[in-house]
């Protein structure tokens, strides 16, 4: 009786492992990881090792799925800081701003989530030190209105691949200009 259970659980483990390697959507894989952890904990008990089974259940049931969910949801965001504060990014139903339509098409094509903020403390940060702001709070794009020429500046990092693609998209519009600045070394 126990032998049949052990063989059946092992075959189930191989099927779940193949399913994890083949799937492409990251959200389905999290649930498969949790069930993989449960099946291995049952196999540890069949092998006469209860201490190892308690450790596997305590760690693999709540801690590991939580950090995977947080890191997958952070990898889909595109954070935009709005300093212009006028109709460029208006989100009304009948008249949408030009900038909002551009950013929305861009983020839908690359499957990102748009996250626009206009927090007063970030807006009053020194405009000459934009590079420091981008490094400290993971802001991806800063929108600013130039006073003299009347066109809108979109500032971003130079090492980001998304900025190249945004530059190609924005070259069709007249009064939008993309500025890229280099940032320093990774992690300091």
């Amino acid at each position, binding site marked *: 009786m126990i032998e049949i259970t052990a063989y059946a659980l092992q075959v189930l483990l191989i099927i779940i492992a193949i399913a994890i390697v083949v799937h492409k959507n990251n959200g389905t894989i999290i649930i498969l990881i949790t069930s993989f952890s449960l099946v291995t904990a049952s196999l540890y008990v069949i092998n006469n090792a209860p201490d190892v089974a*308690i*450790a596997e259940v*305590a760690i693999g049931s709540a*801690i590991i799925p939580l*950090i995977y969910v947080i890191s997958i949801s*952070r990898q889909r965001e595109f954070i935009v800081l709005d300093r212009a504060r006028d109709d460029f990014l208006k989100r009304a139903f009948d008249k949408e701003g030009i900038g909002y339509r551009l950013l929305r098409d861009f983020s839908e094509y690359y499957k990102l989530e748009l*996250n626009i*903020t206009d927090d007063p403390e970030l807006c009053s940060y020194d405009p000459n030190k934009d590079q420091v702001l981008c490094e*400290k709070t993971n802001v991806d794009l800063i929108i600013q209105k130039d006073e003299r020429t009347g066109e809108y500046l979109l500032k971003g990092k130079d090492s980001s691949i998304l900025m190249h693609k945004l530059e190609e998209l924005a070259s069709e519009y007249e009064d939008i200009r993309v500025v890229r600045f280099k940032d320093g070394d990774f992690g300091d």
Partner: protein
Amino acid sequence: MVILVIKNGLLIALLLVLLGAFYFSVQDLELMYNTFAKNYYLENGFYQTYARNLVTGIYLDYRLFDSIFEAGILLIAVSGILWISKQDIEKHNVHFMLDKFKTPDLFVMFARIVYPLMLVFGFYVIVNGHISPGGGFQGGAIVATAILILYYIDPNKETDPTFIVSIEKIVFLLIIGFATISIVTKGTMFTNPFTVDNIEVQSIYLLLMNILIGVKVALGLWTIFTAFLKEGR
């Protein structure tokens, strides 16, 4: 396209060669079996360490050196995570547009019932480590999961992770301190310092080390949660 298929085919062929090598090496496994260590643990394990759970007796008395370095690796990894995820705009949670949500009321009511039960169960697993299956590492993970429920209820709760890491460093130094006391009484380091032949006195050492290791693991995992939730905000 053809190059990709050839590369995948070569990879699968290499892995099948590994499987064949493993199959041939498993046939002669009975020649390598050696039961000297297992019989030694069965005859002398309880009478030298006074721990009924032999696995606890191994990682707290015979091989304490490994457990100290394992606690050290936990401390180094947690410090690395704190340094990479910078939270420089101090004590001001910047409110982004998509962060404003509220947990449902049903969830909050169930969490209020579950949270004290999980804490008590975690402490029970830590304290009964030398009699039944359990111990310091397992109970520490259960206590950390119980603290995680508080973060689900209120996502804007503010804790300072550097303060928790400094408590963890003090606990780590206490573990090393209690492990090296035995050089005075018995002459060798990293073992049980009591020499009285009474089971209750000897169990004090096992209980103390289990509680310290459990507290250390729980604080380390709590810092990892806080660093992930507040990253970049």
